[in-house]
């Protein structure tokens, strides 16, 4: 792995230019490096192929071949296309509806749903002055309900009282009812983690979705996810109809290719990113930053200016 794709491509093109004029084949060779970089960054293969098709169409043009900095030009084109695919800057949560507004959290095991539920609740409470209720529909993981309850206590967010023996659907109904009766603005439904190919559990969350009719159904996904991002995003979107993605663990040193994959596969926006374990470690999404990370370059702005 290399740290700067820009440096690497720059070196390749420098070498080529010393030998004379650039040819289309040279650009094609460089694009292979870009392809590897994207794959190393865990961008899903079908997404890489699609993206590279678009990049290639632009990169073999005269604009690049005649440029004095062809390496930078190629990188700029890749960066632009990445940004385009990643969508626009953070779109807020859609809670413009008659209260109580349900938000449904779904995703694989351990992706960060419970933690993110508390983060979102805290943000809505403190920043948007909403009265938020959280409910755990996780009847499976040991102490999952206690986890949400503890997070509620730590952050002064109300949680639905725990009743043993209820199904996820029962709890969803009880949460909606309680939220209505007690005048909550938003009710966050945290669900158990599930594999996209687990038929029983996917059916369970479909049922919960029908009951809750959420304003937001957020797929909570780990930014360290590899090629499986496609299956996960696609299946959850098809089965429960997600409205957006929250990417967690962006405080890690992963390249974040999953962001691109999920956005490209579902067409749904990345709404928020998790950047830590604490309840305030939640940020808006900036496609620019992710594009830079995927390409392995910190300061994309200066690079683009150089180009």
């Amino acid at each position, binding site marked *: 792995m290399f740290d700067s794709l820009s440096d690497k491509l720059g070196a390749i093109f420098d070498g080529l230019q010393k030998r004379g004029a650039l040819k289309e084949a040279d650009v094609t060779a460089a694009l292979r490096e870009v392809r590897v970089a994207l794959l190393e960054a865990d961008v899903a293969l079908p997404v890489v192929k699609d993206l590279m098709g678009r990049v290639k169409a632009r990169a073999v043009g005269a604009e690049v071949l005649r440029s004095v900095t062809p390496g930078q030009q190629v990188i700029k084109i890749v960066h632009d296309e990445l940004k385009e695919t990643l969508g626009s800057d953070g779109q807020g949560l859609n809670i413009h509806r008659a209260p109580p507004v349900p938000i449904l959290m779904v995703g694989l095991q*351990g992706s960060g749903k419970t933690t993110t539920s508390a983060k979102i609740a805290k943000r809505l409470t403190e920043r948007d002055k909403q009265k938020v209720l959280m409910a755990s529909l996780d009847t499976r993981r040991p*102490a*999952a309900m*206690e986890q949400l309850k503890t997070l509620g206590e730590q952050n002064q967010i109300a949680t639905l009282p725990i009743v043993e023996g209820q199904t996820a659907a029962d709890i969803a109904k009880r949460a909606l009812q309680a939220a209505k009766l007690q005048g909550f603005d938003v009710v966050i439904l945290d669900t158990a983690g599930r594999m996209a190919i687990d038929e029983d559990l996917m059916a369970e969350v479909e049922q919960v979705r029908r009951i809750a009719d959420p304003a937001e159904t957020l797929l909570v996904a*780990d930014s360290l996810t*590899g090629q*499986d991002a496609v299956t996960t995003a696609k*299946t959850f979107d098809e089965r429960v109809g997600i409205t957006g993605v929250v990417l967690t663990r962006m405080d890690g040193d992963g390249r974040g290719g999953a962001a691109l994959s999920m956005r490209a596969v579902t067409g749904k926006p990345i709404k928020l990113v998790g950047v830590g374990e604490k309840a305030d470690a939640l940020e808006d999404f900036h496609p620019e930053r992710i594009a830079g990370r995927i390409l392995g370059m910190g300061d994309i702005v200066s690079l683009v200016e150089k180009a």
Partner: protein
Amino acid sequence: GRSAANLGGGITGIFTKAKLDDDTLEELEDLLISADLGPAVAARVTEKLAKERYDKEVSPDEVRAVLAEQVAQILDGVAAPLDVERGHRPHVILMVGVNGTGKTTTIGKLASKFRAEGKSVMLAAGDTFRAAAVEQLAVWGERVGCPVVTTKLEGDAAGLAYDALVRAEAEGIDVLMIDTAGRLQNKAALMDELSKVIRVVTKKLGQAPHDTLLVLDATTGQNAVQQIDVFKDQAGVTGLVMTKLDGSARGGVLVAAAEKFDLPVHFVGVGEGVDDLQPFDPQAFAKALVDAV
């Protein structure tokens, strides 16, 4: 990305022609990439296949078998059982890894396995940070029937580990497993905290922890290589466990890891239940990676 089903189907789909040519090889490489082997390893495996079979008539079944064989060969050297009968009492196992990979759950599963083998087991709830992490391990302790040493939330993980060692020694426990909070490998302060836990254990018992297991999530992509690198260096990881192989991810990054690090892989997790833990089997793993269902 693609599940094993897609991968296998893909191989079948590629073979409209019977000769292994460049196009076919490129597609095979792509299929391996889809299983998270990473572009470099996928290229090497495909190259090897090309060397042996280029321009020869091959059936899809044959390609699948040869590919699986190659992957299994890479993994063969790292498959190793976890031996907890090396004369230590307690035999101390430390569980480490990034957030949410399955450390606590794997401890529960291992505890059950050791109990079934007639060993006495004690668990130490060393995740004093995450909400209800202690309660989670306590439920596993109850399920499996073994004591759990706890401290209060925000307590000191190293102190807790020490208390657990004292208790396990006094009670003549066979296996003590210490849970730790999930931590990303790029967080220096959290990695230092882990080193402190290890120092305390080593100071108290000498050659311990006897095993430090890094738990990897099969859905993780190429970052897993980085995780192994840093945890090996800073926490002295002695072995790996890969969880969540019951999903659609194939965990191909393990192949990259096997090439790069000389670390044994002990177990794979295939579900959330107490029995959903299997010894790592390179043949089965490789077959699932390249096979149709």
